[in-house]
């Protein structure tokens, strides 16, 4: 089926197909490529000097460092969490499994600004835990921990949602075989499961990292925009823009755009890998099923 669809896609478009193709390409140019080009053009509008000045500015560097710090915390956390959650969702049966799946998807459906507000309501000075935190001199909102927490929340589904379909596709056979050969849970995870899902896992991490670096809404609410302290790159771009440093804003934005492009390239490469490994898994299953169907059934004499 997948093959026939591919063939369809390769047919030369004509008539309605051509119109749809032109429209979508035009929209793509207008909505994606044009803004990207403008970012680059405007970033270098006042010359390379301004660009270099903007990206080496102390506030920019500290925003970059904070963004990278957040990514460095969020991605490993979600790698571990994602493997654990995907294992629960695909390899275990328990009450509330559907609820867990829904909860993991929650950040996709809730507006990031609302997510940010949740943390303010929880940890803010007048929030539920505010007084207790103040007594113990712990700062979460309007500080780095708040930024990290908000980013963790909005990037929660990425790794899990990549792993679950792949782990479902590969099935449990090899894991059961390993267990029957004496392997314990960790050995099965390291030697059997992770090698099979590595591309899906890596892909999930790339998406998670890209979102962590680019998150604006949730972080904007909890960060408090303290320059040099709680400012991430996207927030910094917004501040520069708001202060009419247009060229500087675009210069910093090129850094985000560049990371987006890298993600895009990685994504197209990884997507192919993930799809290939999933297809291999289902092809193997199909092949053995087909052979099984062709086998003899026990001979029975028949009345004639």
């Amino acid at each position, binding site marked *: 089926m997948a093959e026939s669809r591919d063939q369809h896609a390769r047919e030369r478009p004509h008539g309605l197909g051509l119109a749809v193709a032109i429209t979508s390409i035009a929209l793509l140019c207008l909505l994606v490529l044009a803004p990207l080009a403008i970012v680059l053009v405007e970033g270098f509008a006042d010359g390379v000097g301004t660009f270099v000045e903007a990206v080496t500015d102390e506030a920019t560097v500290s925003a970059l460092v904070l963004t990278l710090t957040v990514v460095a915390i969020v991605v490993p956390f979600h790698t571990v969490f994602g493997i654990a959650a995907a294992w629960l969702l695909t390899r275990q049966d328990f009450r509330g499994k559907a609820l867990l799946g829904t909860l993991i998807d929650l950040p996709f459906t809730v507006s990031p600004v609302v997510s940010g507000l949740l943390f303010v309501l929880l940890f803010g000075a007048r929030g539920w835990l505010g007084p207790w935190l103040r007594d113990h001199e712990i700062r979460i909102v309007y500080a780095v921990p708040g930024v990290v927490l908000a980013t963790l929340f909005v990037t929660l589904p990425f790794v899990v949602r990549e792993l679950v379909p792949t782990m479902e596709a590969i099935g449990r*056979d*090899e894991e*059961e*075989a*390993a*267990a*029957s*050969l*004496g*392997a*314990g849970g960790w*050995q099965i995870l390291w*030697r*059997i499961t992770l*090698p*099979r899902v590595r591309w899906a896992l890596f892909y999930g991490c790339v998406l998670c990292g890209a979102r962590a670096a680019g998150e604006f809404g949730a972080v904007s609410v909890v960060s408090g925009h303290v320059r040099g302290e709680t400012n991430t790159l996207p927030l910094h771009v917004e501040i520069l823009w708001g202060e009419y440093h247009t060229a500087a804003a675009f210069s910093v934005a090129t850094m985000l755009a560049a990371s987006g492009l890298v993600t895009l390239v990685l994504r197209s490469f990884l997507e192919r890998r993930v799809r290939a490994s999933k297809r*291999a898994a289902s092809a*193997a*299953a199909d092949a*053995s099923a087909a*052979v*099984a169907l*062709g*086998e*003899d*059934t*026990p*001979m*029975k*004499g*028949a*009345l*004639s």
Partner: protein
Amino acid sequence: MSLEAVSVRKTFGKHKALDDVSVKIAGGELVALLGPSGGGKTTLLRVLAGLESPDAGVVRIRGEEVTRNGPHARGVGFVFQHYALFREMTVFENVAFGLRVKPRGTRPDEAAIQKRVHELLGLVQLEGLSGRHPDQLSGGQRQRVALARALAVEPKILLLDEPFGALDAKVRKELRSWLRRLHDELHVTTILVTHDQEEAFEIADRVLVIHEGRIHQDGTPEVLLTTPASPFVADFVSESAIVHGTLDDEGAIVLDEASRGSLGASKGARVALKKVHVAGAVPRGATHTSSLD
């Protein structure tokens, strides 16, 4: 090593896969679990291996209860219907896997692993293929890798789930007699799941007929053929269709209504009988069919 299941029950949703099943297998035996698909034989095998935990009942290995032990703690080799070879690993690494995951104290060193794996590959006649990946092997070769992999950890019990089901008829026949010879050589207690009575009768010392989650009969191939315990066994095991009827004074068989089906009256009828061993065990005790060996 002996293996025993007592009053095992297992349900999946509303489906009773195993309904109060008890089996006892002595050390060194080769037993076949025979029955139509969906009858519960694979579930029983998985319960014995620890891959499925029963809702009720007890599993014992050499008299010791192992019901709550996971598969890694039972010392039971399992060969899966679709082989379940590790596709990311070479044939060599597949066979070596069970040795490599042993706890540090009992793990053989690299030289010993090399030696053992090559021994096993020799045993299953795959010497030259140790560097291949599973997707570069034929069905029969994969099957033999799966066997070698299971044998590597020297299990005292070997469980085979439809081991030849996915192979073509010729390869299946070869592997069948090869497996029988292997068993005679190694004396590993072996349980084999199959829906093919020919296969069960050819290899096994003893056959358990399983249907709808219950054991219908437990006996040697001879016993199953000559004295089937239920109409189901007679029908499934023998190669003939069973017809019910009575003999009239002139020696003609008059079919019961059920056996007659939609057949109307006619002057002559031909009945084809194939290799009937069945004698007696005819429901309602009307007459008996004779043996036409």
